[in-house]
């Protein structure tokens, strides 16, 4: 999908790099460990392509957090982890003084808070850099199979031909744990117009 020019695409990658970098800093404070992140891989793809990418790239069962956002860019963001590894993150965040049962009990709330922090850092950095504002909703933790993911992301409810998926994939690496995490932002084409305008205004000042 060639909605964005090469310069605009580069700018989005740079802004997401900045946002994810800040999110990584936040995550490192939460887990008290060094967090290494790969360079984000950014793709703008259609709904069918997104469904195919999820099937191909993601593990069969996921633990994640959904957060709706609205403003110069509107849609739904998701932070996704392999379900089997999510308890490691929870354990790292809330410490070892809790029992395994307690950690399991707190998993959903912990993931929601983690998603709140990571997704907000990405979206807020994007908004700040582009001198725009975005309002984020309350995060919701969920567990699903990869086949149910499009439904969780509201993709099936939208017109597939009128929805653009901005998929950002990043790899996490902690000192004591290695797991793959994904960030996905689903935006509609109407919001992509104001996103595009903000990018062009930013570039006009820069170039």
């Amino acid at each position, binding site marked *: 999908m060639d909605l964005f020019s090469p310069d605009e695409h580069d700018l989005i990658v740079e802004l997401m790099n900045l946002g994810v970098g800040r999110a990584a800093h*936040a995550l490192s404070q939460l887990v008290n460990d060094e967090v290494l992140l790969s360079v984000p891989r950014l793709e703008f793809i259609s709904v069918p392509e997104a469904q195919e990418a999820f099937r191909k790239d993601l593990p069969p069962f996921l633990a994640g957090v959904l957060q709706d956002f609205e403003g110069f860019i509107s849609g739904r963001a998701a932070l996704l982890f392999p379900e089997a590894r999510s308890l490691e993150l929870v354990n790292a965040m809330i410490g070892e003084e809790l029992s395994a049962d307690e950690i399991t009990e707190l998993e959903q709330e912990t993931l929601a808070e983690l998603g709140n*922090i990571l997704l907000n850092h990405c979206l*807020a950095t994007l908004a700040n850099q582009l001198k725009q504002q975005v309002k984020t909703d309350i995060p919701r933790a969920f567990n699903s199979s990869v086949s149910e993911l499009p439904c969780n992301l509201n993709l099936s409810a939208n017109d597939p031909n009128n929805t653009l998926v901005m998929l950002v994939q990043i790899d996490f690496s902690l000192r004591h744990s290695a797991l793959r995490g994904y960030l996905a932002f689903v935006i509609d084409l109407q919001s992509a117009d104001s996103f595009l305008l903000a990018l062009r205004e930013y570039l006009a000042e820069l170039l």
Partner: protein
Amino acid sequence: MTDSTPLNILLVDDSRIARLTMKHMLQSLEMSLNLLEAGSADEAETVLSTEHADIALIDFNMPGRDGLELAAVITERYPHIRMALVTANIQDALAQRARDLGMEFLPKPASVEQLGAFIRQDT
């Protein structure tokens, strides 16, 4: 304020995990603190109607009224309470709105040092 008088700190966040994380950090400050908790703006008002608080650490994005709406009420009714907005929403515009209300703005997760620096202004 003397060392023997604990500071009463109200933590307002809809996330139990966020409150738990903040409590761990505050306890590591080795200060005499009495921690109060609320999971919403409404709950915070209920707590404040019966308990004295010196400081309030308030999340922004909560079900019902947000942190700034709560802060406006606290400013009016309890002007002695020092407040910080502790939020992952690090947008400049939001930080400015918080400062306009006289609040400190602490990006979430706030570090122990950041929390300590804010709280010690009152000690």
